[in-house]
């Protein structure tokens, strides 16, 4: 029995609307309980700053942007976004585990090699990380959370993200199709 189970392929994803309703309920719960929305990039930021503060504390204390998170005795990891990021990673892992979707693989278009895909992923990640800090929030913290509480700036931001992606989609069609 256990063997046939292991041989089964991954379970299909749930319907996008159902996923959206679930995600919306988590987002509502987050606002209802804590007053804050969901987020990701702020946590990654603090992890980076934590290491920067270990290696070059003087530099952190001289840079206003970093100072806010790790200046002097401040511990950049002392923030609610850190357990949230940890939870997100574990939640993704658990869901993947129970739905048999844990698999070492590289998702890409059929016309590029794994290596190209990795380079693109790293480059895209770097651009995205830079942009997320520039816009003071990523898709989760700005678009999703700000969108739900009707922040005007978040709605403008959201359409800018879609515009940026659609504007470049044609040039990257080889990478995905």
């Amino acid at each position, binding site marked *: 029995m256990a063997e046939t189970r292991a041989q089964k392929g991954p379970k299909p994803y749930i319907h996008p609307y159902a996923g959206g309703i679930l*995600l919306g309920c988590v987002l509502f719960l987050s606002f209802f*309980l804590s007053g804050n929305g969901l987020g990701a990039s702020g946590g990654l930021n603090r992890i980076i700053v934590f290491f920067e503060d270990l290696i070059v504390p003087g530099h952190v204390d001289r840079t206003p942007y970093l100072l806010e998170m790790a200046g002097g005795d401040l511990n950049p990891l002392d923030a609610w976004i850190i357990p949230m990021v940890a939870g997100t990673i574990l939640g993704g892992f658990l869901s993947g585990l129970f739905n048999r979707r844990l698999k070492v693989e590289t998702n890409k278009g059929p016309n590029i090699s794994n290596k190209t895909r990795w380079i693109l992923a790293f480059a895209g990640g770097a651009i995205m990380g830079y942009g997320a800090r520039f816009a003071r929030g990523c898709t989760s913290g700005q678009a*999703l959370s700000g969108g739900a509480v009707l922040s005007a700036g978040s709605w403008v931001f959201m359409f800018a993200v879609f515009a940026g992606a659609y504007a470049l989609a044609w040039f990257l069609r080889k990478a995905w199709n």
Partner: protein
Amino acid sequence: MAPFQLQSLLGYWGMMAVYFALGLGFGIALELSGFGKSTKLAAQFYFKELTVLKVMFTAIITAMVLIFLAASLGLLDYSKLYVNPTYLWPGIVGGLIMGAGFIIGGFCPGTSLVGMATFKLDGLFFVLGGLFGIFMFGETVSLFDGYWHSSFFGRVTLFDFFGIPAGAVVVGVVLMAVGMFWGGEQLERIFGGRDLKREPKWRYGAAAGLLLLALVTAFTGQPTLEKKWQIAGPEKQPLLDQRAIYIEPAEMLSLMHDDTRGLVIWDVRPERDYNLFHLKTAQRMEESTLRNITATGIDPTANQVIVITGNDEAAATHAWKLVTMQEIPNVYILGGGLNRWLATFDPAGAASVTRQEEPGDRLDHAFSAALGARHPAAFPDEKLLRSLGEFTPKVKVTKVVKRQGGCG
């Protein structure tokens, strides 16, 4: 009333546990929707499969409807929620950069975590790239710091912007989203060859349900400040009853001469009285302004003391209630109002008028002309403090912890 002060309720680790649990839910919801798979995300931009649009906007409208419904029912205080402040142009430029990163890398920061957690190597590389990009931003932001802080509008919402009730925007956004879903499904049919007949029928029911809740929200309306006072009043009323927020003229004088305090004086009397006499630096505040403090651009987290002055105390107390219900901290009232102030610092003028029999919030003082702040009592000498004797200081500046966004 929600949201809760998690730290005082559950302690530091209890609060962190709640955020961890919320993160778990977030990760599970993303993974279940297929957001750990970059090809599924990128398909959005070739119109083959609009999963990103569907999941994202369904999540936004679901959360939005629930938030504003809870607020209209008095279960949730919207003014206490973190609303991303608007920095218009940095937001647009950052959004365009992110869009480029999205189509090149195939993830966004949140989804890449889930990709990594389910062993997708492209997800791992994206996370590493994301950390590198964030690091680079921290190192370069000082080069364009001025621009990065430009076009700041503060906490501005769509309903502020359009000047219509929040409930109407909620209904409008739900309708817009449903329209986008319909359009998206048509695109999937044309570009992705999807058979829409096989799509589940319950999605119509879900859309109708959300629209219904949005309409209920719109018709209930968001709570007025008076309604909020009814709910939160029992908590705040003791401050008034014990006169904990009415400060003595002596304390006011010491505040006026204390440069470290950041004193803000609001005068809530009619314009005529204000022109006759007001304290130095006092700003006259109309009721409509008091009802919408955010529009004045006041930063509620700033280290400041706000003192409201009236002729007596009635109008000032009313103003205090309005302001306090908008979560503005450190607001006080000049005890006895300007009448007592003038009686203290200009006894000669006070003696010259007979006090009205009926109690009313009127100015009981004679002026030779409309002096405004040129009257000596508008900014009495600090030396007078000694002649006033001891006072119990009531002003306590509570430092407000800024609510930071998920990406703050």
